[in-house]
């Protein structure tokens, strides 16, 4: 195990792989330096972003490295114990195997509650405490006031995988990418994190020979990119969905998103609850009011409480701007 793991995490500039991209070393340090008699570590395996299943792939193929990552965190953070918070189907699939790997370590596997939002870090704390599945107001951040009020480190499965690799001295700066949609070779790939979307599609032999666009960073929250915009790395989750431009109805696609957000948001903040409802209404009535859309995007981005609301505008805004025009 690396001597000063936090220093190592910082050296490799590891960023959280849940989509938010928060510096992992800093997060560990914040929890470590908090004064408290108890601390918690949560490995977030709730993977709720549609069309994305890279964490499942990791749990299936490299569970021992994930456990190694959690073990490293347990070592780095005094008086800590850990939870692995798993989607229901992942729980069923991986619980037994993970239990075997956990052995004597203070790690408990917990079944996820609720839908998409059940994977947000403060909602996980709410769930584990048996409270209503709603995001908490931040600050305070879980790093200082998390589970039962104790400093809590919440990292994604892939982040712990990376931490495990770093701790073993085997980290090679890779990242996992789910590739789906109109491609030949759907699946999850481990590739260098510096790869652009274009490179990822090429390397996996998925680069289309037809007119297309992609959704990059998540099947719901991701941004729409045109073919000419693919020379950049992914913002958000390592997930690329390819759409055949000719065969894709952008309105049907947006409807898919509103359906997802309406079902998965918690309806607490006015901009998210009412804004997404109005986008959906416009789609149903086939009457898009550009001014109203822009206004809704603006308040979603500026005044939502949680990342779901604050990022929900991205796919709509980019699709409308680039595809519908």
């Amino acid at each position, binding site marked *: 195990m690396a001597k000063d793991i936090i220093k190592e995490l910082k050296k490799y500039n590891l960023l959280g792989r849940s989509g938010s991209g928060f510096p992992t070393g800093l997060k560990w340090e914040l929890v470590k330096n908090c004064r408290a008699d108890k601390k918690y570590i949560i490995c977030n395996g709730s993977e709720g972003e549609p069309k994305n299943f890279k964490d499942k792939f990791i749990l299936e193929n490299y569970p021992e490295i994930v456990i190694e990552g959690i073990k490293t965190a347990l070592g780095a953070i005094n008086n800590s114990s850990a939870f692995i918070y798993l989607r229901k189907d992942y729980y069923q699939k991986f619980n037994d195997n993970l239990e075997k790997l956990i052995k004597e370590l203070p790690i408990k596997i917990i079944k996820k509650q609720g839908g998409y939002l059940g994977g947000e870090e403060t909602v996980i704390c709410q769930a584990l405490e048996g409270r209503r599945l709603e995001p908490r107001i931040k600050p305070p951040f879980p790093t200082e006031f998390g589970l039962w009020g104790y400093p809590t480190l919440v990292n994604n499965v892939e982040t712990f995988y990376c931490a495990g690799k770093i701790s073993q001295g085997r980290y090679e700066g890779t990242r996992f990418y789910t590739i789906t949609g109109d491609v030949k070779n759907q699946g999850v790939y481990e590739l260098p994190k510096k790869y652009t979307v274009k490179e990822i599609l090429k390397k996996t032999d998925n680069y289309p020979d037809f007119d297309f666009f992609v959704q990059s960073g998540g099947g719901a929250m991701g941004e729409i990119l045109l073919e000419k915009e693919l020379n950049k790395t992914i913002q958000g989750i390592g997930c690329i969905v390819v759409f055949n431009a000719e065969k894709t109805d952008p309105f049907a696609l947006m409807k898919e998103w509103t359906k997802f957000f309406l079902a998965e948001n918690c309806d607490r*903040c*006015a*901009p998210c609850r*009412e804004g997404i*409802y109005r986008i959906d209404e416009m789609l149903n009535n086939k009457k898009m009011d550009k001014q109203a859309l822009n206004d*809704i995007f603006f*308040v979603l*981005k500026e*005044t939502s409480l949680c990342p779901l609301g604050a990022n929900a505008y991205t796919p709509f805004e980019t699709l409308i701007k680039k595809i519908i025009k």
Partner: protein
Amino acid sequence: MIEIIINGKKIKTEEGKTILEAARENNIDIPALCNHSDLKPGASCRICAVEIKGSKKLLPACATKARPNMEVITDSPKISKTRKINLELLFSQHKEECFDCVWNGECSLLDLVDKYKVKINRFDDRKKNYPVYQFGNAIQFDSSKCIDCRNCIEACHLQGVDFLEIKERGSLFQVVPSETKDCIYCGQCLIHCPAGAFESVGEFEDIEKPLKQKDKIVVFQFAPSIRSTLGEEFGMSYGKLVTGKIVAGLKRLGVDKIFDTCVGADFTTTSEAEEVVERIKSNKNLPILTSCCPSWVKFLEQKYPEFIPNISTTRSPQVILGGLIKTYWAKEQGLDPKKIFVVSVMPCTAKKFEIIRPENNVLGMRPVDCVLTTREFARLLMRHNIDLSKLKPEKMDNMFGDPSGAGVIYGASGGVMESAFRTAYEKITNTKLKNVEFKQVRGMQGVKEAEVRVGSKTRKIAVINGLGLAKKFIEEIKSGKRKDYTCIEAMACPGGCVGGGGQPVPTDAKIREKRALSLYEVDKKKKIRKAHENPIVKKIYKEFLKDKKLAHKILHTSYGRKGRGLIKKI
């Protein structure tokens, strides 16, 4: 103390305060809709969003704690733009019925329309077909006005009732009544709703009822706390005493007789003190629990029936006075009691329920025929173009018009206990109580406890306001964690009746305190400050209530396990 900078100005505030609290203390206005100082911030309306240096997003001032040297901007083109759009979205779920709204004239939504150039009809009302729910004969919830701030749910939860719930219907959450629990009609949901989605039953439609009793003698009584709250509806300051003006207003309405519920309270005190003495003597059913708060009584009946024997069987002030009006007073006046229509002006939505409890009937009659809340009474006056602030005070009618000081403080938490103590002390010890002021039980603290020497024994008493705290207290008695109490006063609403669900909005802790203090001022100036020394109490006990059977019918009631009350969708 820490220093923060709001709009370029350095201000000092205590650590732990939110930006909104710090701003308000320094007279900096930040609009906020869903915030209520009684509740923990829900931060759902996003109207109080402000810019904070170092934060990419706007943050809600109501839920963001002030930190040292934080730089805050409370308005900017960006902020104004979000406020305008978010208000339009909020209006899109709120059916406007501004003339029939408990907030009329004081609507915090409407107040922002001009400032932020809000188009209130930019989007269709998405809730226009949402139902109205009615809870008993006390409260209505029009869910087509709800802006989903969930303050009502929080208030109901604080009360320990959890009758209002959030349920997902389709893809949207809605506030709905529980399918298993029951409402206690306290009206704290109403007090804390910024959108006027709650009102009492008949809040706008039935208030003329008392004036339509053409062939009846209409007798009004008004509760202790009304005298320090009604003025607010006419622009007067919080806690302003308007007793004489209420009488003048009622006379303008052409009401036949005007009495003071505080006199009823003097009877309640006298009877309850007797009960205390008896129960101490027999050492049975202690602690005795007060019975004048109908929400508290209903809560015990439905949730803690094992405590029913502990509830004082003495009727509440309005019920006793109503009963005396229809018996003693009717006889004195040579009137047919069936021809008398008694109206109570009450601070309370649950009082509407109390008068239809059959256990409260007197000789087959309802002691009170109609309850108007403080708000409803104010509206009745306004509809008749009577401006309370301009009226010259007038005197109450004789018979039940002059209460003791003890009767007046009933409107504040601790008042019932203090009144009962003044009387019970003298009955138990057969000595005069010199210092009548029982300050340990006064004030806005949720749970107040005292140990008092009465005769040879020290007695433990407790006064609780806020039903959630009362529930906790009862649980602790059940578990044995608390014991040996002689008397417990409980009021469902925070602050007691001054914070009741029938009172003017807004209501918050500071307002409740001012309302309560005024009642103690009245008491202080009274010559007679003990209920049992009130001449009318003495007279009626001597002449009329010596018939024990009759006395029981007028002064006492009974309780029992109750099923769920009426909950209907309209």
